[in-house]
Structure formats: C-alpha cells, structure tokens
C-alpha cells in the first residue's frame, strides 16, 4: 500500500519535509500505528511524533481521531492543533 503523507506547521519543520510517499507494512492499520511507524524513519520524525497528544490528523482530507483506520486511504495528514482566524 502506497500512502501520501502530508505534514504541516512545526510537524513539517521537525520532519524536514511537507510531503512524502511511504509504504507501511500491512500491520499498520490506524493513524496512531502509522505515526509510530513513521517515527522510526529519522530523528526528525521521532522528534515530531514524540508526543502524540500534540498531534492531529486527517485521512483523505477528513479530520479524524488518532485511532482512526487508514485502510484504503490515499492521503494522511499529520499536524498540530489548528490555529486559524
């Protein structure tokens, strides 16, 4: 499964890129599991994902909780709580 991953704000800065394409193993079926798996990719990833309570996510552009499924998803975004307006 190939997945497009987007990062925003300080998550993007910590990871060092705003977008990457990954192929997580089949056991990775939730956003939380994906985050744990992504954290192993680099020191920047590990730093960005150290505290999951500071992270929010969207699957195929819909906001979801971290325990949401990523099965069949094409795009997952990981970012801090929003601060618009």
């Amino acid at each position: 499964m190939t997945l497009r991953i987007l990062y925003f704000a300080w998550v993007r800065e910590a990871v060092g890129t705003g977008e990457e394409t990954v192929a997580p193993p089949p056991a990775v079926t939730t956003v939380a599991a994906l985050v744990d798996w992504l954290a192993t990719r680099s020191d920047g990833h590990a730093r960005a994902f150290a505290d999951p309570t500071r992270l929010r996510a969207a699957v195929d552009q819909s906001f979801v909780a971290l325990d949401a499924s990523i099965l069949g998803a094409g795009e997952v975004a990981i970012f801090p709580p929003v601060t618009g307006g």
Partner: protein
Amino acid sequence: MIRIVVDTMPIDASVELALVEALPAGAVATFTGLVRADDGVATLTLEHYPGATEAALRAVAQRAMSRWSLLGATIIHRVGPMHPGDRIVFMAAAAPHRGDALAACAYLIDRLKTDAPFWKQETRGADARWVEARDSDHAAAARWND
C-alpha cells in the same frame, strides 16, 4: 450564496461586503480578524492544508446556512506572510433578520477557529514561533452544540 476564498492576496473587505449586501437580505453581520499591531509581531505567516481548508470552510458555511435563515455566508481567509494591520480573515452572514445574521457570523468565526486547517507562525525579530491552540477557542466552538 456561499463564498469561500483562501488566498495569499490581501482581503478587500469593501468588495466582500458589497457582495453580501447585494443579496436582498436586510441584515448583514461581519467579522474581521486583523494582525495585531501592538504585541511586537513583525510578520504573521498562515500555513494551510490546500483543498482540505476550502472543504472545511464550505462545511462550516453550509452548517450556518442550514441552522439560520441566511441568504449568504462568506468566509475569506488569507494565507502566507502578513503584517500588523493586515486582515487575516473576513466573514459575513446576510439574513432577513439581524438575530440570524449576528448569530451566524459568530458561529462562522468560532467554528473556523477549531475546524479549519490553518496554522499561525509569529515572527518577532529573529524568533519564529508557532501559535499554540487555545482552550478558549474550543469552548467557544462547543457552545454551538453541533
């Protein structure tokens, strides 16, 4: 009428106000958020999630249109670098009655604060800092109970 714009261009509030006033509404409420000119911020940079942002703003506007008797809802959000005094966001609600316009306008900004994927970075001198989300924004959004 729902009008959603997310753009790096400065927001022309006169043009936006004229568009909602052109509806046969009677009552128009607006809210403008500006880069504060008094707290030392030199540059405010808004990052967003292209595509998801517009969809989130449209969903907020649609919920407002179905909850109140509105003829129009506008949400214009600027992104990219801004400076003190610049408009960050402009929203407007047009309705036959003022109560609907005022409540819907408050709803639009409260929900935008928690539902739309924007992130603010403040630059003061050499120091760049991502703005932290505020609990008060979630409390403000929660009072609409939807």
